[in-house]
């Protein structure tokens, strides 16, 4: 097949999936937070609020986009576009599966295979600050300005520990290509413990992983580092003045960034698509078992008359049958080399996204000066030490 045609198809698919994931990440976040906080969360639109993202989208699309009279209209309108474009671009270098052959075409899920994939990601993440900075400045609102000043300082500061944390696993794998990084993490210690970079042999990168996650929280402006939009101090920070689709763009950018950074963490530290335990102990069956269990549980609840609610009467059996039907797909030999790695990748990245939400439900917010002090006096030296130790051990081990 033509390279360009294939790439176009893949681009369209990736964009579609990523945007849907962003929308549903919001739903998942609201649901998880709600359950942490002892409330049901979105419940009205669709069964269990499943259509809530769609409703939100329609609401935001049909709202009037207001440009404040003192704002700088060009930059005010440019900022959300910049933010969302940069956030969505980063996903192109993530390899989701190994290469496989399907209908005579050799390809992989994932758009490109850059030699300098990591550098590309770093470049995009360092540009990501502009959307926020320009948006806050152009709104001509003091809260927004303060939010964007905070964010530029914060993102520049946390980029250092982030980059340092990325560099140490790179020392182990000796390549900048994300696909090769994942492929090098293949195999198991003692036939059981996966050879992911978190458990890598001379120097396990567990510390690097933690530093990376902390810096990632700061880079994506999430609790406890959500200072740029700290709603109790700066109203809504840099997007105080934004409404309608422009606001939605910032929102989407935030979630796209979270998803991307979780994927990067999966690739760099958690062994990408490699399973948690060897296939000979049945790791291939995990998705089947999970889906089947979920389907059976739904059918069980559907059969229980007492728990039935209006929507559930219809949706529980339908989704139960759907999930049960989906389970054996993972057993089809042709699809197996695609779906099983993809499942593991999505499972790991999804778990990290869950951690992001979980932290949001647990921790209070840092103060601005404490945040900067934390980056420069704790996180940065720690990541530097981690890098030095890793480098030393790698050099000594030859």
């Amino acid at each position, binding site marked *: 097949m033509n390279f360009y045609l294939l790439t176009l198809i893949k681009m369209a698919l990736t964009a579609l999936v990523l945007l849907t994931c962003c929308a549903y990440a919001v739903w998942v976040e609201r649901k998880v937070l709600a359950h942490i906080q002892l409330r049901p969360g979105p419940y009205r639109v669709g069964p269990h609020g499943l259509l809530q993202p769609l409703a939100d989208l329609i609401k935001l699309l049909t709202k009037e986009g207001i440009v404040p009279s003192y704002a*700088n209209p060009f*930059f005010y309108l440019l900022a959300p576009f910049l933010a969302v474009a940069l956030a969505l671009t980063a996903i192109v270098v993530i390899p989701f599966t190994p290469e496989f052959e399907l209908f005579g075409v050799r390809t992989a899920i994932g758009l490109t295979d850059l*030699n*300098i994939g990591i*550098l*590309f990601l*770093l*470049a*995009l*993440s*360092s*540009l990501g*600050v*502009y959307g926020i*900075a*320009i948006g*806050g*400045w152009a709104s001509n609102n003091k809260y927004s*300005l303060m939010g*964007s*000043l905070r964010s*530029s*300082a914060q*993102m*520049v500061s946390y*980029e250092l520990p982030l980059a340092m944390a990325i560099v140490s696993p790179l020392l182990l794998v000796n390549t*900048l290509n994300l696909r090769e990084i994942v492929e090098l993490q293949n195999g198991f210690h003692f036939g059981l413990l996966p050879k992911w970079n978190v458990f890598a042999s001379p120097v396990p990168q567990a510390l690097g992983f933690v530093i990376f996650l902390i810096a990632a929280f700061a880079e994506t402006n999430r609790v406890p580092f959500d200072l740029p939009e700290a709603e109790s101090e700066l109203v809504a920070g840099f997007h105080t003045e934004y409404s309608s689709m422009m606001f939605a763009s910032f929102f989407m950018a935030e979630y796209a960034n979270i998803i991307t950074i979780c994927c990067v963490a999966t690739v760099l530290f958690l062994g990408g698509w490699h399973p948690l335990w060897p296939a000979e102990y049945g790791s291939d069956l995990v998705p089947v078992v999970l889906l089947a269990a979920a389907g059976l549980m739904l059918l069980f609840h559907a059969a229980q008359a007492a728990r039935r609610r209006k929507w559930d009467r219809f949706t529980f059996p339908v989704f139960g049958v759907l999930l049960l039907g989906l389970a054996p797909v993972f057993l089809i030999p042709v699809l197996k080399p695609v779906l099983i790695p993809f499942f593991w990748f999505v499972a790991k990245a999804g778990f990290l996204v869950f951690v992001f939400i979980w932290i949001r439900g647990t921790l209070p917010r840092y103060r601005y000066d404490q945040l900067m002090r934390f980056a420069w006096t704790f996180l940065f030296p720690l990541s530097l030490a981690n890098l030095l130790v890793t480098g030393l051990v790698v050099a000594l081990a030859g």
Partner: protein
Amino acid sequence: MDVLLFLIFAAIAVGCALNLVLQTHPISSALSLIGVMGSLAVLYLLLGGEFLAAVQLIVYAGAIMVLFVFVIMLLNAGGEKKPSKKVLRTAVALPLLFTLAGVAAYVLASQAPRTETVKFGAYVAGPYEVGKALFTTWLLPFEVTSILILIAILGAVVLARKEI
């Protein structure tokens, strides 16, 4: 394809550079400069400078320019209000400059051999090549730059203190 990409990004670079000079508000200028840097990064890629293209974005566009934007926002300085009073100087300087540019371009175009072309992929200086050169041949200058940076940091810290 090469020509097309070159022309597109060269046009963007020149357009952004002109905009940088012509805009009165520093934020517009800063964003134009980021545009120049972005398109130059693509041109570096065409020339095989993979590593430099990435560093251009990470260091130049992502760190130095953020600093500029930060300072502009911090000072909240508006655009230039009055045009320059030294009309004569400008009137003489600009034509001279463009003459210089024209002459330089002419000389370059006539001197450079026509056959000398740039082929994408003919020469690649990725992180490996740059790193190797940097840590073998250029080790001393590289270490000296670290001292330079240290001094710059100290200078910036001293200057930014409240007392001055």
